[in-house]
């Protein structure tokens, strides 16, 4: 069977606007959560988010392009450019034919849409600008990246709330493995930090008034974040033939639906996705040394996820490490799986497991080794990155360390 490897990584997040900054902050356990600056929060019950900072669109795009792309698309484009440059891949005419762009986004271009609708509904203008539809469409990143690099293979966007990026990366992985594509640019991008979205999240009563403390007994909710992560993934033999640096192998992918409830997650649905990812990659449970958890920091998710991990791994659950990097880069919804896969892949590559920041106190309902507050130097053979969405849609990616041959 064809095998698929990660050869390029690009990130934009609250931890910095490059992958070097992202990894140095993850490795140091430094959280990017702070006061919301994008809008006036006096009428909002929560005040903090993990915002992308010091991102100047004009540094990256000309005026004409900026007229047509919203902030989430700008993040996705900048991350994709970094991933492509990082991979060193050369898009020849043949390779362009067989490379696709598969991205995840839950919300699409909400910044433009929110403001446009406000002006229209409040009667400040009677027309919508022609830029609105292309700015708001969730596939904007996939389309723009395909145009920028001339990639004409299978290209589309998945939108499954907080699992969007994992579903996208999973599809890209399968398409490369089955031979439909030879390479893909894949990941996710999002910004939920608009007034309309923030007020909608407020009504869900799942956002912390303080900070995100996954698995900690005193956790009190999630923290929203924005950003993007994109990858170049390639078929193994072609990556080896061009002498590419290989960060890790994508070994398996699994997905499931809880078929239960819009917002209350179920452990059996999550466990099914994890088990399917391991089966898909022919990975024994004992090979997994690290799980980058969905770990939102809500009461419901973290205890459910603990139960799901115990169901799948049995006694091995006490021998593996689990962390939630959402404690540092926040919950970026449709970008979450991608940003978390970046943390996981870099963790495997560098032999350093990302910590759970802001951790205070062990919770008997989350009795796993959650790598509290400090990264840990451990070389793991395999790792998982989990995403579980509102609506009960689960997606897990299994990754394997690349040791130069991976028999």
């Amino acid at each position: 069977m064809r095998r698929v490897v990660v050869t390029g990584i690009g990130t934009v997040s609250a931890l910095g606007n490059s992958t070097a900054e992202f990894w140095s902050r993850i490795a140091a356990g430094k959280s990017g959560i702070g006061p919301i600056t994008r809008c006036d929060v006096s009428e909002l019950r929560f005040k903090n988010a993990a915002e992308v900072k010091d991102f100047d669109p004009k540094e990256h795009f000309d005026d004409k392009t900026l007229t047509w792309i919203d902030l989430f698309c700008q993040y996705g484009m900048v991350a994709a450019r970094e991933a492509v440059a990082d991979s060193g891949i050369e898009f020849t005419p043949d390779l362009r034919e067989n490379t696709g762009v598969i991205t995840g986004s839950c919300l699409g271009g909400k910044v433009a849409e929110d403001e446009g609708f406000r002006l229209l509904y409040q009667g400040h203008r009677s027309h919508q600008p022609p830029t609105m539809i292309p700015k708001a469409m969730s596939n904007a990143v996939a389309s723009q990246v395909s145009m920028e690099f001339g990639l004409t293979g299978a290209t589309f966007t998945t939108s499954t709330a907080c699992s969007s990026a994992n579903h996208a990366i999973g599809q890209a992985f399968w398409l490369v493995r089955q031979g439909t594509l030879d390479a893909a640019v894949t990941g996710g991008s999002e910004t939920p930090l608009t007034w309309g979205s923030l007020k909608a999240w407020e009504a869900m009563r799942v956002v912390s008034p303080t900070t995100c403390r996954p698995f900690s007994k005193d956790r009190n909710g999630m923290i929203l974040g924005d950003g993007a992560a994109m990858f170049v993934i390639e078929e193994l033999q072609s990556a080896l033939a061009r002498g590419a640096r290989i960060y890790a192998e994508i070994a398996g992918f699994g997905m499931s639906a809880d078929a239960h409830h819009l917002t209350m997650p179920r452990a059996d649905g999550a466990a099914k996705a994890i088990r399917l990812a391991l089966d898909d990659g022919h990975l024994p449970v004992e090979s997994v040394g690290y799980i980058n958890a969905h770990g939102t920091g809500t009461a419901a998710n973290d205890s459910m996820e603990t139960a799901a991990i115990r169901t799948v791994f049995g006694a091995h659950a006490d021998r593996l490490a689990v962390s939630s990097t959402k404690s540092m880069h926040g919950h970026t919804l449709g970008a979450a799986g991608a940003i978390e896969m970046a943390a996981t892949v870099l963790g495997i590559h560098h032999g350093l497991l990302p910590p759970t920041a802001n951790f205070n106190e062990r919770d008997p309902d989350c009795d796993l080794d959650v790598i509290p507050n400090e990264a840990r130097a451990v070389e793991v053979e395999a790792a998982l990155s989990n995403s579980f969405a509102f609506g009960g849609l689960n997606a897990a990616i299994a990754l394997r360390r690349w040791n130069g041959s991976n028999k």
Partner: protein
Amino acid sequence: MNATVEETVRRIFADFKKVPIEEITPDTTFEELGFDSLDGLNLVFELEEEFDLMVPDDKVAEMKSVRQVVEGIEQLLAAKESENKEAATAE
């Protein structure tokens, strides 16, 4: 209980469940009405809109019956009124 607040809360519950208002009494519980967590979120939203209030998360957790909702809303309305008075005095 303030009759106006109680009547309004009962009406909101009755509209939500599509039942006559007589079926909703102060002792009616969320459990009896078969409310799940999403119904609860929606009801609190309706209450916030109706009374022009912001109901904090810890208050929501205390509301399990019509009576508890009415008492909670009355407390929040009283707090809001005294805040407004303080603001007026400060000016």
